[in-house]
């Protein structure tokens, strides 16, 4: 906690707090102050979803992700789906076709085997849909009370098929920002179980493999500058990260952002902003303005991106911010998430 009488800024915490995992400002601070200095290398410093490496003239992408979601099973999927799809999608965001995955399990003593079966079955199915195999793994068991039932780490390797380097550095002023579909479904689906919300219809997690839709963009010869899947921290966090690395302004039109009515209603009720709510099967694409309608045609022919829509434009700027033109015609900054998004009651 800041020492209130000290004139110098003191680090906010000496311990890890939940907000360090939120995907926003504190997460980035943690990466910048602990991990980057320790592991310094160019691949890591590009801060993209995965690392692109060259080995004997072959370009490979590598990524890793750990899943700690509670509850383990929720409308639309399980922690297993997230684990497979999340890693497949990170590879896709590097322009890489997934080939192989590893899966490390940390199990809590007392976990029902039937639960583990369900989760592993969903992983098998997700891997099949993504055309990738889980080729190696590991298992550890923790004492009862030391874990949330189950944690999964997956790592993945893919072959880069993108003709050019894709990432925030490739983004140019004038580029269009496309979002592949409705936002916020995953976060609300999970929260709805935790908070006991009941829905008229059902809000399902949007977890899905994105490679088929991304591959179609490459196959159609669309020039792609950057791809980013929208996970924790929502659209806002992804755009802020890209804006800060690219040193450009990303302007988003609020009225164009796709959010389903029921997700919007849940956000109103819970005091959340859909722009910060987690997704698991959605991505943002930065393409030149001239390629937008073709890109949208290609995307919309895939179920996972059937509601793809342009939401904004990149501009030259002196300050790397994400800005929002609001529904009523005003303008404001779309800030990086600060800490855990605490629901507003009031």
């Amino acid at each position, binding site marked *: *906690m800041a020492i*209130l009488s000290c004139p110098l800024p003191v680090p906010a915490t000496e311990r*890890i*707090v939940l907000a360090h995992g939120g995907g926003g400002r504190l997460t980035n601070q943690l990466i910048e102050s602990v991990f980057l200095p320790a592991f310094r290398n160019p691949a890591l410093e590009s801060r993209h979803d995965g690392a692109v490496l060259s080995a004997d003239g072959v370009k490979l992408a590598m990524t890793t992700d750990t899943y700690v979601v509670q509850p383990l099973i929720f409308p639309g999927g399980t922690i297993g789906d997230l684990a497979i799809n999340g890693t497949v999608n990170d590879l896709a965001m590097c322009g890489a076709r997934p080939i192989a995955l590893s899966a490390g399990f940390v199990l809590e003593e007392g976990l029902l085997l039937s639960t583990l079966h369900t989760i592993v079955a969903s992983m098998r199915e997700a891997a099949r849909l993504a055309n990738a195999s889980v080729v190696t793994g590991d298992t550890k068991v923790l004492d009862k009370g030391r874990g949330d039932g189950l944690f999964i780490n997956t790592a993945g390797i893919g072959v880069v098929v993108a003709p050019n380097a894709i990432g925030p550095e490739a983004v140019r002023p004038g580029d269009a920002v496309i979002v592949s579909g409705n936002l916020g479904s995953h976060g609300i689906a999970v929260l709805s179980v935790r908070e006991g919300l009941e829905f008229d219809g059902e809000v399902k997690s949007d977890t899905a493999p994105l490679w088929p839709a991304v591959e179609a963009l490459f196959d159609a010869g669309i020039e792609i500058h950057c791809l980013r899947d929208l996970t924790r921290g929502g659209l806002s966090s992804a755009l802020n990260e890209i804006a800060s690395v690219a040193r450009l302004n990303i302007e988003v039109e609020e009225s164009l952002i796709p959010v389903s009515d029921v997700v919007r209603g849940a956000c109103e009720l819970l005091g959340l902003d859909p722009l910060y709510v987690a997704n698991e099967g959605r991505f943002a694409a930065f393409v030149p303005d001239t390629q937008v309608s073709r890109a949208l045609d290609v995307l919309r022919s895939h179920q996972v991106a059937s509601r793809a829509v342009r939401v904004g434009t990149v501009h030259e700027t002196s300050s790397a911010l994400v800005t929002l033109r609001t*529904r009523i015609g*005003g303008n*404001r*900054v779309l800030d990086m998430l600060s800490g855990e998004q605490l*629901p507003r009651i009031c």
Partner: protein
Amino acid sequence: MKFLDEYRDFSAVQKMAQAIRRITTRHWTLMEVCGGQTHTIVKTGLQELLPETVTLVHGPGCPVCVTPLVTIDRAVAIALRPEVILCSFGDMLRVPGSTLSLFDAKALGADVRIVYSPLDALNLARANPNREVVFLAVGFETTAPANAMAVWEANRQKVFNFSMLVSHVLVPPAMETILSSPDCRVQAFLAAGHVCMVMGFEEYLPISQKYRVPVVVTGFEPLDLLEGIQMAIAQLESGRAEVENQYVRAVRRPGNRAAQERVSDVFEVTRRSWRGIGEIPASGLRLREAYSRFDAELRFPGRLLQEAEESRECIAGLVLQGIRKPYECPAFGTRCTPDIPLGAPMVSSEGACAAYFHFGRRENNGNPIVSIAGARN
């Protein structure tokens, strides 16, 4: 969403803004009292739709921001007790006490839980008879009926492992304090719509008359705020000083009688210290003696804590009274950010400082830059 979306409609909002421009001939300074209204104004960029001569200043209507330091410290101390489950609305968790926030306490192992309703806390108490459930009851008059009901029900059902740490505040005394300050530049008020939904608006009549200020009870959506501003300016331009109701779909003059009755059964008016402003007489609520067994202050007596010192840099008091804008604070955006807050208005999602930081002025390489929504006024 019905009764929400219509009040965010682009063309209706533009038309109302035009109506304001048509009647405004002079400089006017208006204050919106409630943090929820501040949030909407800054989040939607509403200020840009107003004539340059209309200044909106933000009031102390953020109960999180005005909760005294000692209350946070008390809540943290109680939360750290192993038998306690401390329940709170989300916004309170990150407010810094003199050393720790409730979030910090949670990181240290305290059982701190976010609830959406005081009844959730009561349910927790019933489900956990061997634990002590304490609810941090912070809020304006809007939240008092819910908190009153929770205590009433706890009493009726004899759930005695439930208690409340009460820090309720009342709006009209705060308005009077602002109006009686020699630095006051506020010429009209947009009163807090949901507070008036509970309390009605009769108590604003004497204030309006005494200080000759228009008071317009206003809602929270962009169209509501613009209509409220239009009504206030219409009064100012014609030299009137009356109490009017913009938020007619929710607010009636007498308010909600059933809610008021339950509140006065359970609570009584008391003096209250407002963080950043000081003590205001008859500006808060505390539990009546008949319900003292549910008072967490009595159940968990602590050492009398010295009023801890606030940061000398923090100008929260001036911001809360509308005398300074957040970006006029030398620490804004540099030494004071939502991650390293010096004062409460930077922590609460409805605090003016946090709102300006998130939606407005930002810092770049040490030099403050004016954002598009930024600092015209």
